[in-house]
């Protein structure tokens, strides 16, 4: 089977800024995104609960975008800028392969 190489960018972000990340992905040329909400975690800023509760002030949300390497690069640069503006992001990228090249571009 022929497969096409893409990048999968995962960004963990506070609920407040999800829209900004999604907008960035769209403007960078991504064809879509997936948003995960039901999780909690710990990092540099202590324990975080999942989003939605009454204690949800800046709960964790994960945005996953699968895109071509060029688009991915644009997104990563944008994320870098957001971090510079003081917004907390936890980002990781992985190589993945997809069946339909055109679906993701």
């Amino acid at each position: 089977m022929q497969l096409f190489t893409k990048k999968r960018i995962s960004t963990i972000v506070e609920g407040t800024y999800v829209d900004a990340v999604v907008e960035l992905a769209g403007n960078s040329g991504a064809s879509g995104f997936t948003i995960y909400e039901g999780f909690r975690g710990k990092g540099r800023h202590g324990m975080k609960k999942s989003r939605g509760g009454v204690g949800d002030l800046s709960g964790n949300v994960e945005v996953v975008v699968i895109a071509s390497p060029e688009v991915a690069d644009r997104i990563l640069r944008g994320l870098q800028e957001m971090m510079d503006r003081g917004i907390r992001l936890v980002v990781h990228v992985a190589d993945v392969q997809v069946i339909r090249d055109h679906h993701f571009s």
Partner: protein
Amino acid sequence: MADMFEVALANLTSPVILFFGLGVLIALAKAKVEFPSSISEFITIYLLIAIGFKGGVSIAEAGLTADMALVVLGAVLLCAVIPVYSFIILWRIGKLKTDDAAAIAGHYGSISVVTFLAGTAFLSLMAVNYEGFMYGLPAIMELPGIVAVLILVSWIKEKNRSDSTQARSTLGRTVRKVVLSKSVVLLLGGLLVGYIAGPRGMAGVEIFFQGIFLGILCLFMLEMGTIAGDRLADLRKTGWFLVLFGIVMPPVNALWGLAVGVMTDLSVGGTALLAVLAASCSYIVAPAAMRLALPKANPALYLGVSVGVTLPFNLLVGIPLYYYLADYLIGILR
């Protein structure tokens, strides 16, 4: 006139406050009792709609009056004034960074629906009546304080640097976010539905919106307690100045509510509720708005003092105190 001790005791032994205390204990014991987030969300939705709806039905019963407009005006004004002096105190005396001072000030200018509900529960326990349209005030009082503080900040920053256009666009987005936020939309939407449906509409849904209301509030208080308990740990980071601020400001802010209540001829119950609203400190709408508008402000500070200090203070001490003061003042002045 009310006996201060009796009033305080009635408050402390009411289920609403006891469940809050239980929640704090559970958090301190690090026991694993957590509400699923979808449940908290739903309870919030229920509480907001229910108070909106009840308020709407009450207004339909009493009719819209010019007095109400006066109370609303007073309420908006006090919300706009509170964050201004709060900001100056935090910035000049407390030596906090501009963004942190502004974010905290905004929280005190906005209101806490939970504190308001605890106030109504307390009044119904004391069998004290109040104007039905009071239920409409929380929705109106969420926003002005936040707007005031954001204008203040954009004005200060304009003087310093030139990122004022960004500050203004942020202001617009933040206002839009608050106006369309769940709290405001459901409170006002419930009010509207209740107003149109009227007492006839209330008949079929009374058990749901009124009968089980206090019980659901108890569960919610349990959760608020665990959240407040968790926040207590943040206080070490906030420093003593903020803790003091969180205890002293509520009674000070309550005075504005008392003043407006007395001047607009509200009942003792209504005046007490307005004082509770003025004294209360937002923990849902304001944090979300501030996070968006002032990303560099530290959430541990504004959440720590709001949920960890002022919320418990108001619930345990403030509410009966403001009621006592309202009762006393109106007894003297009228």
